[in-house]
């Protein structure tokens, strides 16, 4: 169909359009890599560096530099910059994964030491500094109760606020509320504890109980719940609302019967993530629940313990078994938080289709 102006095979290409770019030869990168590692090792033995991380860092830097210089000589500045950025990004990624994965690995390996039957069935009552035993039963109970109480209040409250913002709110009031939701999102958790201390414990004269801790957690949960369920409500198509109105259904029924059910999976996901976040909060509990070595099943009277607080106190004790307990508690806490996250993700995934 088309008469081809066939370029003769193998003819020297003129490249007047400059389509070709010089490329680093294939052997260049391995050579640069080997040289970088070699130089780093040399420096490692010559100067007093004593950490493997430093060799890694130095090799990476040398590799990036060597590659960039070679590339800018052969391929030109733009390719060199591209290569440099690529190396740096991958390097940043690998480098960041080292400590993050190390945290997880350490928690799992160290946590395994006391991750036993005793740990989950005993409290710290009567466990003296030299005792090897003791467990986190009281702390786990405390955490579960405090989280449950906090969710019971924070979730409906947060969802109602988000309904107001999405379905009714407009103008200055809703803008103000929205602004302060953001401010609350950034509220340091210890401030929530201080506030409950200053208001609930001092001014109202209430005692330190698990419930006081829940109150502090509520403050931290609310903004997360509001924000996530607000996002979800916004995603509900307007046609659904209008279809419902058109059938003569009142607005409040429409919201409860049409809008919320549609957004529910998303809202539940957000709630799970909010719970997961406050489950690990330590600072506000420090000021509000006091901690308790014994088992106290009643969040409304008497001091209670909680897992994060337990980790904090045990970690600061000098004995090695106390630190072991801290690691096991950390492992427990991570498992709880991860489970909540996985459930949240599962719900989100299943309903997304």
């Amino acid at each position: 169909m088309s008469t081809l102006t066939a370029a003769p095979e193998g003819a020297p290409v003129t490249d007047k359009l400059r389509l070709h770019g010089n490329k680093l030869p294939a052997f260049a990168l391995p050579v640069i890599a080997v040289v970088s590692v070699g130089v780093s090792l040399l420096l490692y033995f010559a100067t007093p560096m004593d950490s493997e991380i430093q060799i890694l860092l130095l090799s990476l830097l040398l590799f990036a530099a060597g590659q960039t210089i070679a590339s800018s000589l052969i391929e030109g500045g733009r390719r060199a910059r591209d290569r440099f950025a690529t190396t740096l990004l991958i390097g940043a990624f690998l480098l960041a994964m080292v400590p993050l994965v190390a945290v997880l690995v350490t928690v799992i390996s160290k946590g395994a030491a006391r991750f036993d039957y005793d740990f989950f069935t005993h409290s710290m009552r009567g466990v003296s500094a030299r005792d090897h035993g003791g467990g986190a039963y009281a702390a786990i109970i405390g955490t579960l109760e405090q989280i449950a109480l906090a969710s019971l209040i924070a979730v409906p409250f947060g969802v109602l606020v988000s309904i107001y913002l999405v379905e009714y709110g407009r103008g200055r009031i809703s803008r103000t509320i929205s602004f302060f939701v953001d401010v609350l999102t950034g509220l340091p958790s210890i401030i929530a504890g201080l506030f409950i201390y200053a208001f609930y414990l001092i001014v109202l004269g209430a005692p330190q109980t698990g419930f006081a801790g829940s109150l502090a957690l509520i403050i931290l949960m609310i903004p997360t719940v509001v924000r996530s369920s607000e996002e979800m409500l916004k995603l509900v198509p307007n046609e659904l609302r209008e279809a419902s109105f058109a059938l003569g259904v009142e607005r409040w029924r429409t919201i409860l019967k049409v809008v919320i059910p549609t957004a529910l999976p998303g809202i539940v996901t957000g709630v799970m993530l909010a719970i997961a976040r406050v489950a690990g909060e330590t600072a506000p509990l420090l000021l509000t629940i006091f901690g308790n070595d014994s088992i106290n099943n009643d969040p409304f009277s008497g001091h209670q313990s909680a897992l994060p607080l337990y980790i904090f106190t045990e970690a600061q004790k000098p004995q090695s078994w106390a630190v072991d307990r801290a690691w096991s508690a950390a492992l427990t806490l991570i498992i709880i938080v991860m489970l909540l996250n996985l459930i949240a993700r599962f719900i989100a995934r299943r309903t997304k289709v």
Partner: protein
Amino acid sequence: MATRIDIQGLNVFYGKFKAVAGVNLAIEPKNVTAFIGPSGCGKSTVLRTLNRMHEVIPGASVEGKVLLDGEDLYGAGVDPVNVRRQVGMVFQRPNPFPTMSIYENVVAGLKLNGTRKKSLLDTRVEESLRGANLWEEVKDRLGRPGAGLSGGQQQRLCIARAIAVEPQVLLMDEPCSALDPISTLAIEDLIAKLKSSYTIVIVTHNMQQASRVSDATAFFSLEATGQPGKLIEYDKTTKIFTSPTEKRTEDYISGRFG
């Protein structure tokens, strides 16, 4: 300036799926060549292989040759970045960079190529915007966001951005399909004007547009969905629209397709 394009034995794959098979096509320099055909027949796919833009899509691959003035785009040592510098592209939806002003949008490509001199950039901005028939409309607000223009103006801004780097070839994938008739007319006028300096390939669903703006027309089609698209007929536009050789071409053009 301006360059001829020879497509030889082109097959395009998305992963394992063969989207286009066996395309041979010679596109004349300083001509407007239109790609027409039913949806899904691979017009955009072929167009994108002309500046290796398909490589942006993960899994896409190409067999065959695309010669730009005799030089294979897919030859060893060819850098796609250099290719795109010579073969510019305008997309279906106007896509000026939303964070940039009109001025910055036009000079974006030049800056990539290392042009930093203010005076030079200023001249190129005016030239390109004039070239895109947009200068008079925007000369007083070059510092305003490009996204603040009307759709048609945005598309002309995108054309200005593409021609600012002085390519040889301009590829346009349904450049008017998101625009109103007036803006469409403005773009068509522009294409007629740009033809004197660029080789232009345009994909369009609009038969009138193809017959209005193009010198040659390539008709693509496919037997059935899931089958690869093929080039059915390629000829002078007047020929295609008055006396096509292929029955299928005639059916499509007269609206009897499918």
